[in-house]
């Protein structure tokens, strides 16, 4: 007797969960989570920090100096870098990236400027660790 009463909320929960997963998968084109590896962005970003990144902004406008961005390593494109934009050459369409720890960073000083089109993701916020969670940069 109790089974039918329980199964309706159960089905609703399952459908809801499936819907949430589908929505999350769709949203991943604009919004994603990423974990930081390496120390070249210290003290701003530390290894193990988890970030919310979004790709909507750079569809509307070009990156600006001071923003934190994700970019493919030009020497090893399957590796995704997180760096700060230090300068943008609007005429050339070239971005210069730098680590916040310049003494311990491989960046545009080593591999040169990147085409603006290569940079699609912007760092929006940090959600982990909770003590340092908040909007970035």
């Amino acid at each position, binding site marked *: 007797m109790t089974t039918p009463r329980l199964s309706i909320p159960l089905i609703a929960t399952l459908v809801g969960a499936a819907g949430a997963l589908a929505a999350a998968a769709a949203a991943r084109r604009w919004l994603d989570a*990423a974990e930081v590896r390496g*120390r070249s962005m210290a003290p701003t*970003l530390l290894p193990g920090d*988890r*970030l919310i990144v979004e790709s909507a902004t750079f569809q509307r406008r070009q990156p600006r100096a001071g923003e934190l961005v994700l970019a493919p390593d030009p020497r090893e494109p399957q590796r995704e870098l997180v760096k700060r934009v230090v300068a943008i050459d609007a005429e050339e369409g070239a971005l210069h990236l730098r680590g916040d720890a310049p003494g311990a960073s491989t960046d545009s*000083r080593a591999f040169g400027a990147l085409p603006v089109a290569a940079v699609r993701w912007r760092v929006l916020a940090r959600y982990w660790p909770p003590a340092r969670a908040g909007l970035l940069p």
Partner: protein
Amino acid sequence: MSLITRLLRPHRIVDAHCDIPCGIYDPEQARIEAESCLRIIEKHDASDDKLFRARCIHVKEERAELVKHHLDVLWHDYFKPEHLDQFPALHETFWNATKQASKVKQTLDVAAAKELLAMIDTIDEMWKGTGGPGKTRVSGRPS
């Protein structure tokens, strides 16, 4: 708890990457190996012992190879494109110095070994001129 942690863990890894985390450079490293080459050539020339002379040649070739290696590391990793503005002859200087190290590896020419030292000293000036001692060595070593 571990399941929740795993679910929260992003699959996407972004690299705050650095090729050379240590960032320690000094042409002194190449110079010490080059000084070894010079001294070994002098010892070789002063000896009549066939075996000792053979050992000299062998060790000198190893040391000369290390000179090339240390110069290459400075060239690839320490010097940056902006240093070229300050020292336009940078590439040529390194090319000539590494070629000179090859010459020291191949020959028993004292003059060639001395010339190599002079070339490393030119690179040392570039390293000092670009702030190398302050940026790429750990301070506090007794002088």
